[in-house]
Every structure is written in C-alpha cells, then in structure tokens.
C-alpha cells in the first residue's frame, strides 16, 4: 500500500507542473511514463558498473533504486533543474567539466 500511495501522491503533484492551461490526461500519463522511464533507465545505466566490479554494481543499483523511488515525484525536480535559466546551465556545464576532468585523471586506472 505504501508504494501505491507514493505513486498516487506523485500523480497529484504533476498538476502543478503544467501552469497556466488545462491539464489533460495525456499530459499526466506522459509525465508518469517519464517518471518510470527515469527510474528504470538510470538503474540500467548503473548496471554498467558491473564491468568494473559486480558487487559494487549490485549495491549501487539497489541504493539508486531506493533513492529514486523514495523521492518519487522526480519529474518536477528534474524539470526545475533543466529549465532555461542561464545560471543553472552554466553551473551544470562547469560541474560537468570538473567531473570529466576528475574521472579522466583519476579514473583511467580502473576502466
């Protein structure tokens, strides 16, 4: 029942996403599909870690799945992080640059 309530709460929150205009069921179902796609596909990508270490990949996938399901209405959060604000874009751009440099410098021994 807990999981069901979680989904139901998430669907209710989608309404706030479509500001200014009627919310049709196709919009809500599209957002719900996006929600599931996010959870499933991020877990699938995390499975790639098994080429480094199988135990690590199992742990990461479990933790990721739990984190994603607990924070269930993910789409509003993702959408607010990916809006057209220049400051957010620059911040994520430079963060990515830092991540790439760190991975390429210290990570190349482990791939």
């Amino acid at each position, binding site marked *: 029942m807990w999981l069901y309530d979680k989904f139901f709460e998430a669907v209710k929150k989608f309404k706030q996403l479509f*500001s200014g205009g009627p919310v049709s069921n196709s919009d809500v179902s599209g957002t719900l599909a996006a929600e599931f796609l996010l959870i499933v596909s991020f877990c699938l990508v995390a499975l790639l870690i098994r080429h480094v270490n199988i135990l690590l990949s199992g742990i990461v996938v479990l933790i990721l799945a739990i984190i994603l399901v607990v924070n269930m209405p993910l789409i509003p959060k993702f959408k607010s992080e990916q*809006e*057209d*604000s*220049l*400051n957010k874009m*620059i*911040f994520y751009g*430079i963060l990515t640059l830092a991540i790439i440099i760190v991975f390429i410098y210290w990570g190349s021994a482990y791939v």
Partner: protein
Amino acid sequence: MLFTQLSVLITAGVLIIIGLLAAIFIDNIIKKIIGIAFIEEGVNLFIIAIGYRPGGIVPIIMPNVDKAYYAANAAYPLPFGLVLTSIVIGASTLAVMLALAMVLYKKYGTLSTSVMLSGNSKGEGKDE
C-alpha cells in the same frame, strides 16, 4: 629561464579559473562577458607559452642568416600563428555577445542575468 615560462603558465591558469568563477558567480551580464573573455585570453596566453624558447630568435628567415644557426635557435612559429587566429575569433564572439546583451538591455532595462536570462521571468518562457 624556465621560471619565465612557468610563471606565464601559472598566470594563464589563474586567468582561466577567474573566468570560470566569474561565469558562475557574477550576475551582471557585462561583467560575466568580461569574465568569459578572461578564459579566452588565458588559453591564448597558454598557447603562446608553449612556443616560448629561452634565448630564441624570431622565426623569420632573413636574407643573411646562417641556416644552421637559425634551425638551432628559432622559436617554434606554429603557436603564434594559432593564437593570432584565435584572437580574431575571440574578438568576433565577444562582439556578438555584447551586441546581444545591448539588445536585451533595451528590452528589459536591466543588466542582471537572473532577470533577463532566467527562463521564467515576465517576458521569457511564457510558453512553458
């Protein structure tokens, strides 16, 4: 002599980092653009520093220069050629950025990026 090259390289690194910090933290669009120009200049300085040679001569073959002396002492000319092109490109991107900033200043009456480039202020992104 290595000290000269090293200090130039460190200056280039500092310029790039200042530029990146300015791009994240400064709100005024003109200052942000100046900061971004810093990145460009830092990279140019870095490439010039690559071509540096202690005690080197200008890489142009003059009529009465000994070929062997020239080959042993001339600086590497390629980085300077590249930087010249890169400066021209940097100037043109800077001009386009400033022109667009001017247009937006006329529209919004402010230079704050969090107002005019936020994606959800009064004029922007109303179709979301």
